[in-house]
């Protein structure tokens, strides 16, 4: 068994508006390095909330979270997000008016790595875009790319800073079936090839089945599906 890369203890999340809802209830989760996890559940069960908490985008109402051995706090979560995590969203969330390469380089720039063509970040970004099959689209404005291409740019961007964990929220939700299949395969292959931990929130049972572990979120608790 690989080392633990993410550990959530007694995580809870309560929304107070418009009415009090306990969306996560003392939830525990342990993820090992290189593991691929799918989290499924009904709409409104709190899958995205859980993913955002695991990705430090949202603070839990209770409990603690440790990523790569570091306890997440207000002061280090931006740094952890930049160094250890990569996000892939359903709506791609690429920066407009930027090229594919510029988008992929953004995490490196935020992390103060040299984004110039002479730097390693540039080479890594080009290599990632080649891996996702966009070698000929490096300098295309993302507005000109198709949905599948945009999601590939998002995958490359998520991997740019060589993070330990990739968090994907419905990565194929906006794509057709064929493209979805390609994206799923690409994502899993890259994660496996690079030894990344993958946490995917999805409605797609096919994608969930491709992951090593499949959790169902129900009533604020995770239960493992077999």
């Amino acid at each position: 068994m690989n080392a633990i890369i993410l550990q959530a203890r007694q995580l809870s999340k309560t929304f107070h508006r418009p009415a009090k809802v306990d969306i996560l209830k003392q939830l525990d989760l342990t993820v090992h390095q290189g593991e691929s996890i799918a989290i499924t559940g009904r709409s409104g069960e709190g899958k995205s909330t859980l993913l955002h908490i695991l990705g430090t985008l949202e603070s839990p109402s209770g409990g603690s979270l440790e990523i790569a051995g570091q306890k997440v706090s207000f002061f280090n979560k931006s740094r952890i997000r930049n160094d250890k995590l990569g996000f892939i969203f359903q709506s791609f969330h690429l920066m407009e008016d930027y090229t594919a390469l510029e988008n992929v380089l953004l995490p490196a720039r935020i992390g103060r790595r040299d984004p110039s063509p002479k730097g390693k970040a540039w080479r890594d970004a080009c290599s990632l875009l080649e891996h996702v099959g966009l070698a000929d689209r490096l300098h295309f404005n993302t507005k000109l790319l198709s949905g599948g291409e945009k999601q590939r740019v998002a995958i490359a961007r998520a991997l740019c800073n060589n993070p330990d964990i990739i968090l994907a929220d419905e990565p194929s939700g906006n794509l057709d079936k064929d493209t979805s299949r390609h994206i799923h395969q690409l994502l899993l292959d890259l994660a496996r090839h690079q030894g990344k931990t993958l946490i995917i929130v999805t409605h797609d049972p096919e994608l969930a089945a491709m992951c090593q572990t499949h959790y169902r979120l129900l009533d604020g608790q995770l239960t493992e599906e077999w």
Partner: protein
Amino acid sequence: MFELSIACKYLIPRWRQLSVSIISIISTLVIALVVWLIVVFFSVKEGLENGWIDKITALTAPVRITPTEKYYHSYYYLSDTISANSNYNNKTISEKLLTPFTDPYDPYQDEELPPNWPAPEVDHTGNVKDLVKLAFSAAASLSGIEGLKVSDFETTIANLHLPRPHTSSDTQTPQFLEYPSFIGSFDADSFAITKTLLPVSPADSHRLLSLKIKDISKLPIAAATETGILMPSTSLGEPVLLPKGFRENGTLLGDQGYLSYYSPTPSSIQEQQIPIIVAGFYDPGIIPMGGKYILAGRDLTGLIRASYGQEENHFSNGINVRFQHINEAPAVKAKLQQALEKAGIAPYWQVETYQEYEFSKAIIQQLQSEKNLFSLISLIIIIVACSNIISMLIILVNDKKLEIGILRSMGASSGSIATIFGICGLVMGGIGSLIGITTAILTLRYVNELVGWISRLQGHDLFNPIFYGSTLPTELSFEALMFVLITTVAVSLAAGIVPAFKASMMRPSAILRAE
């Protein structure tokens, strides 16, 4: 720095963000307009003020040393009145400088010292201190002051009698008008004074020709040279320089008149007359008594002063300390005071800068007050202009909400997000300032053409030459430049704080889910 690159992307006008682009362009132009206005206004104002101060210091000096009450009650000063060596007369500072007697009193020849007569001020060797020569020596020995010149000055009063101005049809009978005036000596070897000398007018030339003087070198014209003013040597009268008000009232170069004053004689007080000739006109600037201040040679002022008690007006006699840079005046004053202290004569002398002279203090203070007031008004205008930045940035923050969420998801800290919008405000303020400063430089270059054009349009002078001179200053004020740059940048930065804070406080999770 990724914050800067993101901010620059946001600031480039785009069709897709038309409202933000229009607001940002208008905000920048408003800042540019305000900066242009402030820089032009302050530059012209500073130029005029510097011109006025130059004239004040040209006619006086940046620093003056004047005798105190203690000087006039000292043994050194009073001993002349009981000494045969001094003809029982008080001496002016100029005379004190020239006399070989520091202590003219001879106990064997002169009457006995009255009781309560002040004790002599003696040095460590027991000799009477020569207060004037020591003061001159202290001033002249100041080090590290460029262009240092020390000379005495005298001001006195007399009645100036000049022929009725040449507007009268009756030119046969000389009729004189009497002007109570101040007569002041001036440092003819000071270059600063040449800047106040007015050029010869066509009417003056005509008048000079009518004098029928064949030898051109004998013409009674004061000439400005590289080293100062060269006063003419003429048998027609003592050459004097009149303030420009006389010229405006019809007095011409070469006009002859006389100065009258009253002098005590053994039998009575009699009127004395000294013939004078108008050798030039000068611009006295804004000195309140400038219109009545006649510049004459030191011999003439000394002669008239000798008829009055020297202590009647302490400020009418003293030592001028001139130097190259008048902004060094406070430092020179401090050095002078130290030197006088060291010589042990500080209580006998008062050292003042041009900002403290009795006749110019009020004006200088008024100019300073106006400057402070206008600076405050300018600051308020800049704040109003930059407040547009707040609205523009708030719209931009709302417009870029999703991008803020994306950047946060990639690890951008709330500080980085705040920095991006802070930079946006700063860049807008900076660009506005640069446009404003550039147009201000261009405006200043052509300010006189512009004023001439507006004057022609309205049918009379936009600025009265009597107060503002024939041309306006065109030099860019460094102080104004620094003021607008620092203020605009600081206010723009402050204006960016509210939107930047708003942006940094956005919850990335909420944004990403909402989108």
